[in-house]
């Protein structure tokens, strides 16, 4: 009998412990209003920074937060939305192309229309299209992210090179780095999303510099990936590989490994998303400085464009259980104070530019290109479904293992584009 009691006690204790451990964090401040927020783990620092400022101004609002990794986050959010248990305010992706992007979420009626808010007028034209669906605004974009070549200034000095501004200079830069026992670009193509970065860096110049309407033409069916500037970009990607621009065996190298190569200076540069900068800096020896250059694709430096897009964003649940604090929080996110806190914590630029933001000098080229109107949204943000991007990932990996050529990959992307 006694052992039965002990067993019962143990089971009860176990369940209690599990229940305690599984509940998410609460920033309680003893008010009556409650606000539930969910975001991806990569944007935790930014979200927390904004919440801290929000709670100073709204001490009565109780906030519950939960964070998870991208894959898990998207799955959980979709389940919560369809079962009516979603948080009041949640992280969502601009444009289309992934399961929690607004083009996917808006038609279901689960996210609230924010068009009437005054701050929507301040969203820059370059990113406006990806914050809207059918002319209505559905998110507060928080950050502006670019893709370019992040470089290690010390390694650049060691090989005696400078940032290339034309395609010929870029190939010469590869040769110089190689002759000095380093690689020009670290590349971690084992991680699927890394495979797209070089193409994304080249396509703004090879496609959009001469044809701003490429996306509309794709949508209308009058343009295709195959035979477009995409083919030029992919051919150049392979040319860089054959020239020895990339680190050894990119397909066996993960994103983390490539970031480490750049941080330690084994590689001079890496074509990456600018938000990776904080990760690179964290791994680099103290005092290492980094810079950024747009990847040239032609021999005319003036033609060079750069991918720059709205990164993270937040949406308001159309059926929010606590609509009033949720609405207040959404408006707060759009203030320069919140934008700057978020951008500083995540190592990005604020999506709505303002004078109070203290910029990391390494990111200056991105700001200059944004001001000059020479940025192009990330290509997948305007694709109709996530399969196009997946076809791109798989295709690049196949190209690098010699199992496909650019034309085949682009045909597969066209096929995926035409699916619903």
């Amino acid at each position, binding site marked *: 009998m006694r052992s039965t009691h002990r067993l019962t006690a143990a089971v009860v204790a176990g369940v209690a412990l599990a229940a305690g451990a599984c509940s998410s964090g609460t920033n309680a401040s003893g008010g009556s209003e409650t606000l539930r927020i969910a975001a991806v783990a990569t944007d935790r620092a930014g979200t927390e920074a904004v919440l801290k400022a929000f709670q100073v101004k709204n001490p009565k609002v109780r906030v519950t937060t939960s964070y998870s990794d991208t*894959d898990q986050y*998207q*799955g959980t959010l*979709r*389940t919560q*939305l*369809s079962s009516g248990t979603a948080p009041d305010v949640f992280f969502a992706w601009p444009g289309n192309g*992934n*399961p929690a992007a607004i083009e*996917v*979420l808006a*038609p*279901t*009626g*689960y996210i609230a229309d924010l068009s009437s808010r005054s701050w929507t007028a301040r969203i820059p034209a370059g990113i406006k299209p990806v914050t809207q669906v059918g002319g209505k605004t559905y998110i507060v974009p928080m950050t502006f992210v670019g893709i370019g070549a992040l470089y290690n200034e010390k390694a650049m000095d060691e090989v005696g090179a400078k940032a290339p501004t034309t395609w010929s200079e870029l190939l010469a830069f590869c040769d110089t780095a190689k002759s000095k026992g380093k690689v020009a670009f670290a590349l971690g*193509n*084992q*991680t*699927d999303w890394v495979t797209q970065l070089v193409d994304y860096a080249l396509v703004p110049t090879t496609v959009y510099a001469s044809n701003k309407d490429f996306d509309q033409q794709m949508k209308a069916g009058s343009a295709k990936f195959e035979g477009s500037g995409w083919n030029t970009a992919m051919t150049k990607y392979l040319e860089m590989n054959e020239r020895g621009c990339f680190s*050894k*065996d*990119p*397909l*066996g*190298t*993960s994103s983390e*490994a490539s970031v480490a190569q750049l941080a330690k200076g084994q590689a001079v540069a890496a074509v990456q998303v600018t938000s990776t900068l904080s990760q690179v800096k964290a791994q680099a020896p103290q005092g290492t400085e980094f810079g950024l250059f747009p990847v040239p694709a032609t021999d005319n430096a003036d033609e060079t464009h750069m991918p720059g897009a709205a990164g993270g964003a937040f949406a308001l649940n159309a059926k929010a259980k606590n609509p009033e604090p949720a609405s207040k929080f959404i408006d707060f996110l759009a203030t320069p104070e919140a934008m700057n806190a978020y951008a500083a914590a995540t190592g990005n630029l604020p999506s709505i530019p303002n004078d109070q933001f203290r910029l990391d000098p390494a990111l200056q080229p991105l700001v200059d290109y944004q001001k000059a109107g020479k940025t192009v949204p990330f290509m997948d943000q305007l694709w109709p*479904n*996530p*399969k196009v991007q*997946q076809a791109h*990932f*798989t*295709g690049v*990996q*196949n190209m*690098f*293992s010699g*199992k*496909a050529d650019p034309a085949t990959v682009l045909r597969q992307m066209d096929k995926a584009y035409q699916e619903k």
Partner: protein
Amino acid sequence: MAQGSAREVTEPVVPGPRQAKGNPVGPAVAASRRGRRTRRAPAWFLVPAFALYAFVVLLPSAQGAAFAFTDWDGLNPTRHFVGLGNFRDMLEDPGARGALRQTFIIAVAVTVIQNAIGLLLALGVHSRIKSRNVLRVLLFAPAVMTPVVTAALWKYILAPDGALNGMIAAAGPDSWQQNWLGNPTLALCSVAGVVVWQFAGYSMVIFLAGLQGIPREVHEAAAVDGASGWQRFRHVVLPLLAPATTVNLMLSIIGGLKLFDQVWVMTGGGPGTATETLSTLIYKNAFQFNEYAYSVALAIVLTVFVAVISGGQYRLLRRREVAAR
């Protein structure tokens, strides 16, 4: 697993005392024979447990499976009935055919190699060599680790500048170094190798239990009859290991067909689609492509494959077991 529960339903039996501790398969047969002879428990004893199982497992599974006949994207409140459309799409999807092929290759390779190595290890640590208990613990240790953790470690070991290529560089010519996970031809072998590395010790333990259950007298009788070492192994040990073999083959083929964690962590199905398995394809369709209904259809196909293959294998091996007795 499914087999076991089906048998419990049709043949309710009060387990004999030996069944709890003894060899997992052999005595179960004996116990069921004994049970049939002595007393049968009334079938309605099963009702509470079955009701709970139905509510927690069967009903939700059936509800989930129903999505395979719709076009639901996992989010939209509306969905339409599309009949067998998703299954037809599967036939035309080269990705699904490839995943099926890779899944079979991995399952067969893992089953054969893991059990061959497991048997050799069991024979090794069953002998009177010194420190055999330490060896048993060491060889079994990988099996208690989480697959995600071991896969993440192996991903570093198998990287182009990882530990394995480092060791090869120190020992042999550079041409022996390989891009273990980045070469599409090698990647599938590398993944299978890691699974075998992790679970060979697990097979070993089950074989070892079988070996320890073989009475010494049988060995002695065979030796007296003049049987050589190989003859004793082939005609005495191997037949008596049949129950352990059944369990091992079942577990490894089911594990191989369902393989997900190791593939996902080490290659994500790549390079290209070289290591895509049915499980990774199911995951991608459900959570990355918004093709929830299609992924459920794939999952149903996987379930049927696992049930048919493991069920067929079980019947075949059990018949051999009985014949060996």
